[in-house]
């Protein structure tokens, strides 16, 4: 269970104050697959970063499974990210000089997974997202966009997180590949009861999720 109450976020820029989120309240049930849509600059990424404790709200609170994450110390927020959250980014954001396998193992290391079984677990994760053996040994630059995104989903799943936060995971992919990635996420939410919050521009994708939130100028307009 994830509850957002009266969250506002204001950025100070040289040009003045930018209010990216205005008094947002919403809640997502465990195992739900929800989408957030909205125009560019409406605050989608900002909301996602606050849900993932990458940033703190200016006011308001975020309670995740009885813990108010915006009040945690920096170290505890890091642990929260390592163990409870799996991120999937539009730009994939794999570490460039590590192989696909090493990228997944890095997340396992941060999640405190035992060192001697990291390799087996990483191989199993990559196979489950359809990355074959020879691709596992490649660096991100030697993989296609769709393959990179699969690796990043494997990395997000590494520590069996309760939540997956995906910011336009299909934004850089062609529609066919994007659909496959989406289906992959969809299957996960069904099979592993993982709560998935996905930001998207694609209304077709949004239509397939359990619920869709629409952001407009930092406000929730539909629930």
């Amino acid at each position, binding site marked *: 269970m994830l509850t957002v109450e009266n969250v506002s976020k204001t950025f100070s820029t040289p040009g003045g104050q930018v209010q990216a989120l205005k008094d947002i309240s919403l809640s997502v049930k465990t195992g739900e697959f929800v989408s957030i849509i909205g125009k560019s600059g409406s605050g989608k990424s900002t909301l996602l970063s606050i849900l993932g404790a990458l940033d703190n709200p200016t006011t308001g609170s975020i309670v995740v499974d009885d813990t108010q994450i915006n009040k945690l110390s920096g170290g505890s927020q890091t642990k929260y990210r390592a163990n409870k959250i799996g991120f999937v*980014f539009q730009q994939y954001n794999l570490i460039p000089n590590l192989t696909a396998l090493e990228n997944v193992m890095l997340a396992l290391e941060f999640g405190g997974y035992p060192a001697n079984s990291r390799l087996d677990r990483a191989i199993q994760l990559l196979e489950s997202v359809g990355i074959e053996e020879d691709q596992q040994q490649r660096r991100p630059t030697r993989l296609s966009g769709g393959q990179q995104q699969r690796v990043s989903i494997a990395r997000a799943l590494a520590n069996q997180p309760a939540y997956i936060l995906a910011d336009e995971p299909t934004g850089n992919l062609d529609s066919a590949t994007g659909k496959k990635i989406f289906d992959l996420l969809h299957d996960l939410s069904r099979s592993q009861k993982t709560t998935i919050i996905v930001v998207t521009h694609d209304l077709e994708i949004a239509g397939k999720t359990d619920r869709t939130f629409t952001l407009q100028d930092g406000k929730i307009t539909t629930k």
Partner: protein
Amino acid sequence: MNVVTRGIKNATRSPLKSGAIVLMFAVSIALILSMLVARGSVLTKINDLKATTGTAIAIAPAGVQGGQGGGDLLTTDQVATIKNTANVSSITSTLTDQMITSDTNLTSSLQLGGFGQRQARTDTSTSSTGTTRPAPTPRINVTGTTDVNSISTDGSALKLTSGSTIDANGTGLVALVGSSLASKNNLSTGSTFTAYGQTVTVSGIYSTGNTFQDSGVIMPLSTVQTLTGQAGAISSVKATVNTSDNVSSTVAALKTALSGKADITSQAETAAASVSSLQGIANLTFAGVIGSAAAGALIIILAMFLVVRERRREIGVIKAIGGSSGKVIAQFTIEGLTLTVIGAVTGLILGVFVSGPMTTSLVSSSQSTSTTASTTGRGGAGFGGAVRGGFSQLGTNVTQVTASLTPQIFLSAIGITLLIALLGSAIPAWLTSRVRPAEVLRTE
């Protein structure tokens, strides 16, 4: 793969860039080491110079050098003045004379040679013009002194090959005979010879390694004064000053006190020019150490600054997927340390090889203009000759600064390098801690 291997692996991520950083850093470390070596060697030389030039001041009547020249000998009053000058701790007085054939039954062990012939000719032509010149005969130098060790050419105690020393402050008819003269005249301890109409007993035989000195006779000062009928007369005084720092002020004080009646010289004063030019090099090398250390630090800081800047997103991702700040800092610190350690080792090895030639070229280029301390003295008797010998030796010494890499210098180079390396690692640590993980969601 852990933080350490990731850090090391990242350091070699782009070999060209890392290579350039390592090379630049290595050069600055090599410079630091070379400058430290040059400085150490020059400082050692300065100390050596100060120690060897010591605290001695030579005072001779104006116009007299060795046994030659004109002017009046120093008087008892003048000697008393010298003795009472501030900071003068002790004095050694010397009176030299030369015995001709009518004065003694000894035969000189010196060959006149071309050099001696020339002196003898000028001597006789001034005294007896128009008369037939007698065949020149070498004379025998007699040194009356209050301290027989002042005859030693190298500043140490006079070396006796047999017998015992004489009481230089006494009035006895005793003498120390130079080894060359002794063998020429078959003299040994206990033998006697005639000098100025008196019988003198040989107390010991000495050897200095200087043929001129070893052809002379040393007797107590009073004895020589009495024998030559010059009561109270002194041809040169060596004053010893309490500390080397007071030498130049004492020289000035003596010059005033004796008001031009005597030539006053000290090795310390003559060496001062060399010392100050060496001091100049020492200061230069110190600035060099600071400069190359600053350059090395700047290179590492700049390089790490660029590395962190270039990889902001990567740092953000690591933080976003649950990497603690500690792990990020550790990884980048190890990356920085890998570069600095490789650079430092390369630099230190390079430094060991270039520090020698560097010191030599540094010292010789600035010394070539200042080696004027060397003098070419005619072999005069007694103290004057010894001092001039010392001077010329000093002149060559100054140019012989040897570059030596002592363990202390090597350790201080390592210390400075370590300091730079730590700084070069602390900078990325600080920089990475400022990267906000939320930035990974921002599109470039």
